[in-house]
């Protein structure tokens, strides 16, 4: 099809499977994520969505299948063939990973400014003032009062911590962000604010994202496309409104009908 966008995917999974011994994590999953596209992976606990996220972000090794990623130089490479050093570099430049539990993704003992600046320093920034200015800028963008830049996240509320985690991840302008239940542990009102913030930033930066969530409202608000997982397999996928407004599979219909109307 002509003129409908770049045909080369940013991330492509082919036949991904993971067994933990005889226990199935996920089976034969294939899909693509293009630049600027937000994919939500929904399903209940144990459906394999977290396993999938860990496979994609190379924190787990697949039992079968492969993942290809289009690097910044335009060359698509098999992630399994990258050296650990290259993978780490990818992780602190081109990728982000937002954990459900902020302390897992933050350094709780160092200041917010250092949390945001760490990736910059890791890629060789050596000018204190520039690092700090950039950190202030990012705190502003995630709506954290920059006067609190020198406090540790221990003094922050849950919502602020999550926003700090987002700033810390996005400061190197990654092209792909993995999010694991990004609004998971937050109050409903805090969730709404975070979601709006995320939606704005993701759209503004043209980020691609893979968002794992059990919350269909999060999927509806953030994602362009949805994959529904059950028992380790993808049972349905499509445009977000397609899947949520016209669900085909019995399980998807059950999921959608279990949600209170917005």
């Amino acid at each position: 099809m002509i003129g409908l966008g770049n045909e080369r995917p940013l991330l492509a999974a082919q036949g991904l499977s993971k067994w933990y011994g005889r226990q199935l994590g996920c089976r034969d999953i294939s899909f693509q994520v293009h630049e600027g596209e937000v994919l939500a992976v929904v399903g209940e606990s144990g459906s394999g969505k977290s396993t999938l996220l860990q496979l994609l972000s190379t924190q787990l090794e697949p039992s079968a299948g492969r993942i290809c990623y289009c690097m910044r130089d335009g060359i698509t490479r098999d992630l399994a063939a990258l050296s650990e050093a290259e993978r780490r570099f990818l992780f602190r430049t081109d990728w982000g990973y937002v954990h459900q539990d902020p302390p897992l993704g933050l350094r709780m003992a160092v200041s917010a400014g250092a949390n945001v600046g760490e990736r910059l320093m890791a890629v060789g920034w050596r000018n204190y003032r520039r690092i700090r200015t950039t950190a202030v800028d990012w705190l502003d963008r995630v709506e954290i009062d920059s006067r609190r830049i020198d406090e540790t996240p221990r003094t922050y509320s849950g919502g602020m911590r999550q926003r700090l985690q987002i700033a810390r991840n996005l400061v190197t302008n990654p092209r792909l962000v993995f999010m694991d239940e990004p609004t998971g542990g937050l109050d409903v009102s805090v969730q709404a604010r975070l979601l709006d913030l995320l939606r704005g930033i993701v759209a503004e930066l043209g980020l691609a994202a893979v968002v794992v969530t059990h919350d269909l409202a999060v999927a509806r608000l953030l994602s362009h496309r949805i994959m529904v997982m059950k028992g380790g397999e993808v049972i349905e996928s499509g445009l977000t409104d397609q899947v949520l407004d016209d669900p085909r599979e019995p399980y998807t219909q059950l999921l959608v009908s279990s949600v209170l109307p917005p």
Partner: protein
Amino acid sequence: MNAPAYNFAYLDEQSKRMIRRAILKAIAVPGYQVPFASREMPMPYGWGTGGVQVTAAILGPHDSLKVIDQGSDDTTNAVSIRKFFAKTAGVQTTTSTLKATVIQTRHRIPETPLREGQVLVFQVPIPEPLRFLEPRETETRRMHALADYGLMHVKLYEDIAQHGRIATTYAYPVKVEERYVMDPSPTPKFDNPKMHDCPALQLFGAGREKRIYAIPPYSNVVSLDFEDHPFERYRHDGKCALCGAVDSFLDELIMDDHGRRMFMCSDTEYCETRRALGNGAQGFSKATEAAPA
């Protein structure tokens, strides 16, 4: 020399060989912490068990050994270790930096420049510079392997954010041969530049943590910093009350309850040598007049 129960330099030959292999590896990979099977020594951890094992492994009968503790040849620790090797190895001991072939040190590098052929052995309490921010050893080792050192600058960033400048004054991290980030042991950062391009071999032994690392002669050693907050040496702004030196690292001595103080060289041998050459500055009495800041 009739104390026959001891092998030469206390340790058995097999242990010394094991330690020498670790040392050779450390020299081959400058700044890299080589694990070794640290032995029990007849002294408590924290008193230099790592340094003593390294010294024991490299000492030969014709060596001349100097031991300093924070620059001083005559504190308990220094005296004990010197006596230990005099007894177990029968080597010559000295306080002269010039004459010594092996210098074991706790937390200082002598003021007198070292020369080729000398070995400086550091006693190290905590060899891992990244531990402050990353307590997992598995993770810090991986970070070293991948030269993933952003975290080290996080520590310096925190310093500046909290104190307006890099407030780390000792155990100031360095990068060796543009590869490994290394803890120089708790030496004052005043001594960091001496490590760079040093003609002597520098060995580091951590007994409790079972690590040996090294800086081979004439290695490139750079103290980490920021462009706009460059590394700066620090010494008290004053001169030695005994020898008048203005270039040596000074210890501060509080004289009384009114905060009167004086400074004197931390390196006692350097100070004595200068005085022997006629460099006496002021007497004690004058120095005590130095008003508190």
